């Protein structure tokens, strides 16, 4: 099925891809040509074509992270032509389609860049810093069993909706990649906001934000200067308002908590 645009012509493209053997070695940009790319292909399917070609020739395929290819797992993370997840806003790399490009284009493909996201190989980076931030407090401390009935504490729809919007963060790291400071505050703020909004999260509200921010700083992410690149590039539209909430929660926690250290 030729998708919606049966007249779309296949494209030939030049790719400039970051190649790096592993964390310890230096990398460089390598040029490749791909031919007969259908506009209905996804960006990653275009890379599949390149990789099949490289493998057949006995070359090393380009390593990149991906999995669900439907924009929800947060695995894919390419910096395409100077933009996190490429030129289309509100879109993960896997949902970017080649119809956004034109025949003859040169496309520069790089990994996320941040000291806290070291490169594993080629375009694959290590985002475990995000996991460690969640481990520092991005949860409600309830053991399995013994939870009260789901309807015991009503949550106004507006609050539930706002919590949901913050909770949709897919943890891809585009916010860090796009930010000129490599700041992780949009990511951290999304989780802090979600749990600060919901009554279930209130018990640990102060310690949560203190611990998560401390971990965020320890990981070496930069600080937010409110320029908005993160929210502009976030594939799921996490809003900058969350960062204001994070700041507010942090200040309130520091001012009021009994934690002296």
């Amino acid at each position, binding site marked *: 099925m030729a998708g919606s645009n049966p007249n779309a012509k296949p494209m030939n493209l030049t790719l400039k891809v970051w190649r790096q053997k592993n964390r310890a070695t230096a990398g460089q940009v390598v040029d490749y040509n791909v031919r007969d790319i259908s506009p209905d292909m996804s960006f990653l399917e275009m890379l599949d074509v390149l990789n099949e070609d490289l*493998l057949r020739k006995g070359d090393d395929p380009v390593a990149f992270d991906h999995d669900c290819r439907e924009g929800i797992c947060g695995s894919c993370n390419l910096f395409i032509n100077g933009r996190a997840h490429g030129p289309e806003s509100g879109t993960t790399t896997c949902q970017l389609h080649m119809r956004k490009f034109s025949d003859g284009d040169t496309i520069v493909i790089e990994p996320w860049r941040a000291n806290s996201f070291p490169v594993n190989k080629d375009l694959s980076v290590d985002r475990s810093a995000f996991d460690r931030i969640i481990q520092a407090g991005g949860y409600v401390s309830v053991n399995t069993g013994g*939870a009260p009935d789901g309807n015991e504490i009503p949550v106004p729809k507006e609050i539930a*909706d706002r919590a949901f919007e913050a909770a949709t963060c897919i943890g891809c790291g585009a916010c860090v990649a796009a930010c000129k400071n490599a700041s992780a505050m949009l990511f951290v703020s999304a989780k802090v906001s979600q749990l600060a909004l919901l009554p279930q999260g209130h018990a640990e509200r102060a310690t949560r934000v203190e611990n998560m921010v401390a971990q965020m700083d320890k990981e070496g992410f930069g600080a937010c200067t409110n320029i908005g690149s993160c929210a502009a590039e976030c594939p799921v539209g996490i809003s900058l308002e969350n960062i204001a909430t994070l700041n507010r929660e942090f200040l309130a926690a520091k001012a009021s908590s009994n934690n002296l250290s």
Partner: protein
Amino acid sequence: MSMILDSKIPEGPRAEKWEKHKFNVKLVNPANKRKYDVIVVGTGLAGGAAAASLAELGYNVKAFTYHDSPRRAHSIAAQGGINAAKNYQNDGDSVFRLFYDTIKGGDYRAREANVYRLAQVSVNIIDQCVAQGVPFAREYGGLLANRSFGGAQVSRTFYARGQTGQQLLLGAYSALSRQIAYGKVKMYTRSEMLDVVIVDGQARGIITRNLITGEIEKHAAHAVVLATGGYGNVFYLSTNAMYCNATAAWRAHKKGAYFANPCFTQIHPTCIPVSGDYQSKLTLMSESLRNDGRVWVPKTVEMAEKVRQGQIKPQDIAEDDRDYFLERKYPAFGNLVPRDVASRNAKMMCDEGRGVGSTGLAVYLDFADIIKRTGADAVSQKYGNLFDMYAKITDEDPYTQPMRIYPAVHYTMGGLWVDYNLQTTVPGLYATGECNFSDHGANRLGASALMQGLADGYFVIPYTIGDYLAQTPPKPVTTENPAFAQAEADVRGRVQKLMSINGTRTPDDFHKHLGHLMWEYCGMARTAEGLKHAKVEIQKLRKEFWSDLKLSGSNDELNQALEKAGRVADFLELGELMVDDALNRNESCGGHFREEYATEDGEAKRNDDEYAYVAAWQYVGDNQPEILNKEELHFENVKLTQRSYK
């Protein structure tokens, strides 16, 4: 020699079985729990929930995922919702009704006791998730909202817009993260399990490959839980994520765990159709869309031909020229018939020549009515993210023209055979979630996969594994036993073998070829003749794989082609077993449709006298026919009838 399987179903009336069993299982003394190590492989809903809950109890858990983070498991992609028998809507739901719907929806090929327990604990899942901060949809008054789903006439599905799986997984991930922070779970990311280690007939560990360094590692524990998902990717194209694979389950199978009902695969009716050869995966459009979308094709082949040629647009086809075939054939359930029925009917329409899209392999899912009735804004509130995703992929606007959909492989009901305790035929080896076979019979109802994964992980395995551990001495287990060295050497040898073939065809090339065979002959409709043909072809393909595979790079680095090759090698064996199973089952039921066994109106025709059993296959050696073991299914609480959704 085949044996009768003991499913260890507790005695007593259905409603008391689980309560009684929980009382009868042996307990591990709280002070002793920290002396036991448990390995959990996979950190999706089933694995993440199990790892967190077991750690909360005090066991030392080692959790493994091949992803870079537990938050990436494919549970995250589930869209529509999770069922629970809460009866919050006062519309007549109950534990029994959820049980009944699930058994009936599964076309009477599921184990009653397991399904009843699933329905019982479904209510606890919702409570647990709410307590974790999962932002379920709410009504204005602040109470939880519900929607209806295929195969049910009550509204019992809890949801978080079109991202329910994501929110539930992040809930389990947060619980898991908390235990990692406490040091009770040691998390191994980017580690792929490549074998189970059996010591004296019991599962005592696993062998993994570190995907970044290529290092082969040995891990020991008192018990091993596999929560490694389904094997839908055997078809190459499916709604599963790219990494989803059968390797862990298949390795366990080759170490003695029986594989049950492998031919029971679910074809989901509402997926975005294939657009070209390069296609790497298929994208699901949530079943919840069938609540408001109407499925149709043109009434005549001529009209359909015009649509295919692009001479006429679907929105310009008059009402009288449309065939809303599900509403016509199933007036009671209409567009909400179970998935297998909806899929098969879509295929029938296309086979008749009334399919749409340029390949003719699609039907329409139309929202014009609901948009007219409630406005585009209200529709966007409900389905906005799905509509956006559709538009992104197809470059078509579903607000102004009907979606094109076609069935695609989505879920596998078959899996490792487990007893009531979720233990496989290997003592100490457990299987949870989609990885096991237990709860969905021959067809799974929508919004039940999340329910089963979390039920197994949060509420079943924490009890049943204790029963096993209590009977195991709390002595440390190590990787000293020669069985570990042997398993490690085997894994190493296999990796080396793959690296050294140096042929011409890539892993993807073999995978596509296998997928094509499976879809063609073991897909939505199967025949004995086709299956026999497929068996021969798969064997040929497997031989070719081991002599003509092309890889590059080395083993001691991130090598995604090598990872893929290992998975394809296992799919090539599993695929044959699926064909064997489909060939053995001379009936049609649920997702398994044999053209030879159909009613006059083309519905699946079961043969309860001969096939009301679980087919549990036993591996006996490479290239030898597997042995069929049967678990007879007993239905004490429902009457077996021809399913009718009319």
